């Protein structure tokens, strides 16, 4: 069980986080605070395991709340913000992640998963669940007209989210797969395929160019000339995979 507190001066923002947490197993919301001062007193008296913490609060900023707590009492923290400039200081205080408002459901789930792992590690338990992994996808079953066709994963250059489905781009053609991108991401060999954006997965050996953008996202150009955005959340995984690909 992970004990969670939610700190935001806006009631609507708090209820947004609470609503998202309601469906999550193993989470107990133990407190809410509407300002930095009362949060500091409350967190000091009864430290939760995890806080969702708004950065832009009047009088006492979210980051000042974290900084004012003794390091041993500092809970795991996921920051909520509409801006991104604070990041360096936040990470010096061991914030786990930050969520840009308005909150994206998928990013929320990722941040919470990160917190669960960190929580397990803090309490000496095993890190990631250790169940036998399913084999990676080698072919995709797609429908072309009335026929079913197999597309080899090795022929796929990139995969694009298409609502609840995904579009494979292979050999200049496009195929619709009736599975959401998020689920595909977990079933592909991470040595070959990397998620680069909430709407795209690319085959690592198809990346021809990478250019950083001012907001720390990046733009990729694939071998076939297709530009694909990569968001900062996924950049580290991508550059690591590109590094491995070049060594191999």
């Amino acid at each position, binding site marked *: 069980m992970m004990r969670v507190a939610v700190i935001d001066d806006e009631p609507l923002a708090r209820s947004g986080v609470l609503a998202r947490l309601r469906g999550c197993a193993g989470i107990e919301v133990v407190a809410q605070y509407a300002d930095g001062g009362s949060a500091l007193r409350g967190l000091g008296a009864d430290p939760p395991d995890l806080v969702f913490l708004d950065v832009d609060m009047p009088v006492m900023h979210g980051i000042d709340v974290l900084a004012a707590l003794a390091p041993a009492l500092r809970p795991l923290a996921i920051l909520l913000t*509409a801006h991104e400039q604070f990041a360096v200081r936040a990470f010096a205080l061991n914030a786990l992640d930050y969520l*840009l*408002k*308005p*909150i*994206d459901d998928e*990013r929320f789930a990722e941040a919470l998963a990160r917190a669960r792992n960190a929580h397990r590690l803090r309490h000496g338990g095993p890190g990631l669940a250790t169940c036998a992994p399913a084999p990676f996808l080698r072919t995709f079953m797609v429908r072309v007209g009335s026929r079913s066709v197999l597309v080899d994963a090795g022929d796929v250059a990139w995969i694009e989210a*298409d*609502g609840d489905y995904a579009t494979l781009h292979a050999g200049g053609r*496009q195929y619709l797969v009736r599975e959401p991108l998020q689920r595909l991401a977990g079933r592909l060999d991470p040595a070959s395929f990397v998620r680069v954006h909430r*709407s795209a997965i690319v085959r690592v*050996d198809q*990346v*021809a*160019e*990478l*250019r950083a*953008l*001012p*907001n720390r*996202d990046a*733009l990729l*150009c694939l071998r*076939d*000339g*297709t*530009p694909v*955005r990569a968001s900062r959340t996924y950049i580290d995984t991508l550059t690591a995979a*590109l590094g491995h690909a*070049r060594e191999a």
Partner: protein
Amino acid sequence: MIAQLGDFLRATLDAAHGHEHALADELALTQGYLEIEKARLGNRLAVRMKVDPGLLNAPVPFLILQPLVENAIRHGLALRDTRGALDLVITRESARLQISVANDLPAGAAELEPSGARIGIANVGTRLERLYGADHAFAAGRGADGRFQVSIALPLTQAAPPDRMAA
């Protein structure tokens, strides 16, 4: 959807507002906008983008593509009841950066486009004139294939440094 809209607004507001920025920045911004339109139009909107190698650092006018893409959707693709394609192709032709935006039109589209479409296109033309004077080319209209197409040629001022990844 709301998160996508947030990303797009942040990108347009946060950018250092010079006249020009890198093609990579412009493409990222355009894709952010297209993601919103895709949420709206779903399967009716097919987007194809191609960029020649080594152009991501090339300077282009800030928000030059977005009005063209918006125009292609509002006055072309959104009026169709079947799937239509938007093609954005960026090539290098000697010392020119060539931009082409083409889109399918609704069946039986009238010869004269609505005046709103004309204003958006004319604004882009005026801006290019101010920025580059005689050193650019700009054309818009229906091609022989019946699609609407906008073509722009800009001076490729900066020899793009080789930032290709070694494979």
